[in-house]
């Protein structure tokens, strides 16, 4: 078992803090949808759209990170960019606002985005096993993706969101 050196530990802690910060908008969307505070009422209807748009930004970033990791080690095990790009396109089209190309119910959009996030995680765990990412990356991604999926599922589970556009 490898021992983590101080530099790796600092790196892991910094990335964990950054990852948790990135989770806040997802959690906030779920919070706004579920907490019946008068102060938050104006944001309630916008929260699902915000969560989907934010998911698209994060999916783009994560698939970019996967591509960057491949670029950093071109001589490693063969792994293609295409699966990540396809997953990004799926999230992109699921998150497009109504009226741009089509109208879609949230009950269709959210499960697609959740499934795509799980697929991106699976892909990145494969890369982590091939040591294309630092040793701490896999565990961190599992925890953060769990947070993303729980938040998106919580938004979708609200009666005002399920079935709404």
């Amino acid at each position, binding site marked *: 078992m490898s021992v983590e050196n101080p530099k790796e530990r600092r790196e892991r802690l*910094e990335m964990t803090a950054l990852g948790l910060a990135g989770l806040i908008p997802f959690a906030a969307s779920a919070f706004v949808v579920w907490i019946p505070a008068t102060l938050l009422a104006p944001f309630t209807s916008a929260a699902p759209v*915000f969560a989907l*748009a934010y998911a698209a*930004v994060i999916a*783009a970033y994560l698939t970019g990170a996967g591509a*960057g990791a491949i670029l950093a*080690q071109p001589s490693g095990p063969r792994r293609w960019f295409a699966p990540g790009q396809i997953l990004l396109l799926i999230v992109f089209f699921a*998150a497009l606002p109504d009226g*741009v*190309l089509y109208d879609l119910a949230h009950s269709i959009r959210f499960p697609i985005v959740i499934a795509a996030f799980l697929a991106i995680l699976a892909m990145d765990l494969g890369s982590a096993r091939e040591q294309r990412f630092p040793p701490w990356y896999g565990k961190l991604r599992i925890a953060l993706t769990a947070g993303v999926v729980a938040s998106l599922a919580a938004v979708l589970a609200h009666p005002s969101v399920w079935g709404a556009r």
Partner: protein
Amino acid sequence: MTNSVKPSETGAQGLPQAAAVLAYAGALPPIVAALMVWMRPADLGPATTELMLIYGGALIAFFGGVRWGVAVMRAGGPSFASLLGGVIPLAMAFPVFFLEDAFTRFLIIIVALPILLWDDLRATRRGSGAPDWYLGVRTPLTILMTASFALAFLKTLLS
């Protein structure tokens, strides 16, 4: 079916080829969208502009991710500056997704894409960035995509 594979399709050589094909495919939507904005401004213009802007935001976030991925896996570990260089594009992408003002959103994209390319080229020259071939593919594509966004922006200004 045989197992024969052309040497150019394997390993590190196949990677640039496949990545180049994907990159060119990824550049098509803004190019086509810019043409649509000019050719069918009345019916397709607004939706195509919105599609284009969201795509531009996703591109910026994606390039930020690439920088982060390259930085985190570089020999000796990432530097603070290189990690920051990966996160800044993400921060630039947010307003493109969440602002309503098309003018500002177009400006962010038109400014961000060349700046990211320029900085990535610098990093590659220093030996701390992506491989040469990647930027060799990205340079013409960034020029094409930025020109597409600029064209659509011009149409938005004129209408």
